[in-house]
């Protein structure tokens, strides 16, 4: 019989990334019991559900790792770097096993053995030798592994009144709970019980509070209620948490409030006389009492919020469904624009009112839909912690990665495609940017290098910055290298900014020797291509000896573009507004002043331009005064000449389909309100295209 394992693998992958993040955090604060608990729980869940879904190899392997980590949880062994290294390796191994099950390469069994032996060597009394019988290879029941000192739980059970209709006997659940632990106190709450004449024997009026001391986990308790989880309000609270035991036993009033038995106001009322009496006795001032109450409130509300946030509900939806929704909303936006246009053409007031209402709703629907696809970039950032850690160890460098703006949200598609470029950039920073500790000390720097990863919103874009405090880029060196490789003419005079752009050339590498990490000259050109594909841009600034900052500017979403609608003869085009800097007029006089060259003087700056009419061979005569849309294309100002600028236009991007996949100058198309199609220009590709053609026709051009 087939069992659907995708739910398990999906969950397992998620748990693995959580595991990794927790381990890396744990490395920074090895004593944090919370983190140790998190690591342990993640492994425990993987093991448990792995066994259930037939992933015996995962279950057995994870069991071994978990056993060792359990010792750390019980403080039998300390959390050390070797332990974290091995557990990280184990995490990778589990991933490999899962990948293998999904049809990937088979996992390396010897590696698994090495990890397990390494872990066993950490156990007390192991002495480095493979501990004979220290951890039996046969599977143990999961419950046994979670055994540690017993905990006290408060379990509130409030069955729905109709629970008997399903043949459930709540008393059996209570006795099952009783079997879980050594001490169990059950208190029935029967205040809802009506007088006998009103009592319906088929209705459940009673609820229970159970105080259970058990070695079992909260999940084991929840398992008791597996058949009635939708018919039962269940509230489980660990009463002897560290922070509770650490402080004094709470006052009965506080407990009543926390249990929700009396509202805070009542407690306040009841407590007031004490404060008043103290004030009367001259022991405290009224403001002191007030402050103490405020303090109590503050802490309590903070904690309540935390609990609330933890249990915040969310729905998991396959991303294809979201993509479908976005597509449909895109269609709707297009149709709505047509509705608006039709309504205004008809001059029908009633229709216009409806169209306006539809416009408002469509706008909200669009924004909402887009926001659903937004994910915080934090998970991507977290992955880099591991990268930095591993690479810096490999290269013998000390590097700290700090992040900022992890909560910044971006479209899921953008985030997915951002991973590889960021990996390249960070690798480069680690390999070429940050110096080895001895060189850093010699240069008067902190031996520990710093890479700062940040994300912030800026208008309709997100800026992602990778900063390092390494040796920086040397513009002269870059220029020399590029000349050596014949990538630029020998007598080139480049500004610093232009020189920095050289690193994005295909095959460009400044590394003296090729390392495992980078230096093969593939990388930054790929980075630029990926960022182009995302309709983003890259900016590099660097101070020699101080460090480098690489800034990626990315659109919030790929489905919608803020565009500038322009017209050439009867053709309409959309230019991405993010790149547009200004619009200036191009008169006949400007053209004759330039003596046949396609450049214009804008406030004493010479800006080259591309005539869209010529480029696409559109016929007709241009108007006397044309418009130049000046855009920032890869750090260079470039103009695009059009007949007229119609205005700003928010458009839904439609892909051109396979017939036009080679038309590189367009990134897509959009449908306007009246049904006309406007092509969206890919500015950087256009510029590169034109440059390439000019190079061919006039090879001597400087």
């Amino acid at each position: 019989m087939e069992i659907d394992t995708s739910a398990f693998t999906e969950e397992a992958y998620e748990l693995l990334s959580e595991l990794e993040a927790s381990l890396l955090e744990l490395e920074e604060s090895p004593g944090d019991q919370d983190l140790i608990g998190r690591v342990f729980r993640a492994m425990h869940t993987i093991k448990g559900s792995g066994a259930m879904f037939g992933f015996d190899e995962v279950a057995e392997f994870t069991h071994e790792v978990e056993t060792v980590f359990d010792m750390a949880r019980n403080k039998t062994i300390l959390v050390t770097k070797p332990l974290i290294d091995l557990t990280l390796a184990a995490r990778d191994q589990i991933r490999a096993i899962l990948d293998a099950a999904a049809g990937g390469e088979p996992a390396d069994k010897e590696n698994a053995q090495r990890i397990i032996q390494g872990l066993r060597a950490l156990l007390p009394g192991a002495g480095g030798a493979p501990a004979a019988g220290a951890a039996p290879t046969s599977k143990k029941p999961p419950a046994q592994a979670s055994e540690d000192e017993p905990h006290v739980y408060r379990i509130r059970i409030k069955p729905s009144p109709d629970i008997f209709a399903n043949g459930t006997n709540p008393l059996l659940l209570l006795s099952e709970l009783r079997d879980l632990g050594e001490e169990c106190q059950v208190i029935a709450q029967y205040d809802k019980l009506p007088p006998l004449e009103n009592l319906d024997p088929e209705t459940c009026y009673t609820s229970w509070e159970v105080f259970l001391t058990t070695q079992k986990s909260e999940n084991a308790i929840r398992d008791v209620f597996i058949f009635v989880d939708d018919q039962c309000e269940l509230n489980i609270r660990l009463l002897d948490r560290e922070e509770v035991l650490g402080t004094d036993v709470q006052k009965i009033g506080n407990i009543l409030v926390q249990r929700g038995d009396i509202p805070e106001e009542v407690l306040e009322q009841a407590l007031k006389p004490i404060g008043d009496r103290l004030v009367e006795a001259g022991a405290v001032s009224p403001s002191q009492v007030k402050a103490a109450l405020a303090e109590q409130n503050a802490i309590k509300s903070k904690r309540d919020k935390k609990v609330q946030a933890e249990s915040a509900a969310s729905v998991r939806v396959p991303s294809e469904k979201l993509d479908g929704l976005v597509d449909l909303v895109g269609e709707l936006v297009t149709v709505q624009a047509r509705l608006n246009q039709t309504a205004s053409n008809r001059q029908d007031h009633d229709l216009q009112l409806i169209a306006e209402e539809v416009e408002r709703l469509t706008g909200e629907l669009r924004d909402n839909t887009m926001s659903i696809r937004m994910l915080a970039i934090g998970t991507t950032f977290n992955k880099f912690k591991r990268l930095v850690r591993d690479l810096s160890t490999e290269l013998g460098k000390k590097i700290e990665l700090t992040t900022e703006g992890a909560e910044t949200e971006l479209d899921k598609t953008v985030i997915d495609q951002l991973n590889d470029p960021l990996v390249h950039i960070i690798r480069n920073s680690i390999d070429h940017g940050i110096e080895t500790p001895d060189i850093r000390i010699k240069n008067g720097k902190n031996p520990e290098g710093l890479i700062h990863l940040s994300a912030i919103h800026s208008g309709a874009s997100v800026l992602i910055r990778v900063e390092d405090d390494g040796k920086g880029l040397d513009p002269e060196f870059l220029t020399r290298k590029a000349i050596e490789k014949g990538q630029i003419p020998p007598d080139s005079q480049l500004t610093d900014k232009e020189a920095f752009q050289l690193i994005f050339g295909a095959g460009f590498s400044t590394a003296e020797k090729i390392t495992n990490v980078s230096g093969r000259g593939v990388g930054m050109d790929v980075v630029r291509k990926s960022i182009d594909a995302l309709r983003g841009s890259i900016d590099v600034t660097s101070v020699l000896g101080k460090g480098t900052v690489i800034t990626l500017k990315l659109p919030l979403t790929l489905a919608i573009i803020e565009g500038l609608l322009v017209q050439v003869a009867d053709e309409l085009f959309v230019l991405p507004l993010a790149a547009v800097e200004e619009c200036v007029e191009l008169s006949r006089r400007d053209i004759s002043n330039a003596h046949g060259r396609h450049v214009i003087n804008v406030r004493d700056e010479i800006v080259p331009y591309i005539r869209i009419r010529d480029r696409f061979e559109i016929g007709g005569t241009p108007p006397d005064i044309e418009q130049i849309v000046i855009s920032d294309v890869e750090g260079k100002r470039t103009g695009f000449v059009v007949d007229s600028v119609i205005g700003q236009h928010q458009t839904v991007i439609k892909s051109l389909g396979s017939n036009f996949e080679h038309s590189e100058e367009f990134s897509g198309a959009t449908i306007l309100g009246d049904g006309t199609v406007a092509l969206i220009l890919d500015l950087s590709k256009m510029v590169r295209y034109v440059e390439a053609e000019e190079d061919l026709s006039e090879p001597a051009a400087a």
Partner: protein
Amino acid sequence: MGKKIMTVDDSSSVRQMVGLTLKGAGYDVVEAVDGQDALTKLKAAPVDMVVTDLNMPNMDGITLIKELRALPNFKFIPIVMLTTESQAGRKQEGKSAGATGWIVKPFKPPQLLEVIKKVLG
């Protein structure tokens, strides 16, 4: 005298496996081959609990549960459904019809007994 449990399944091998497991644990077992058969037999002689498959000819498990819950004798007895579909939808349908719990096939005898103990005591 042990409690009496009815196992309803069109597959004789499942009936046999459930039957042997339950008898081994000291329960009395009666068998039915589909919902219709079960309903007829149960009306003649009530039991303490029903374990039923969902997909069966003549009358499926969900209908059986609904029919049973409408009879005074079976309003509150535990009814456990056997389901291959681990999907929540099928379980939910059964729960709404009045099922007490479920066992996802394939299962092993100890798992069956665990569930029986949970709902029958």
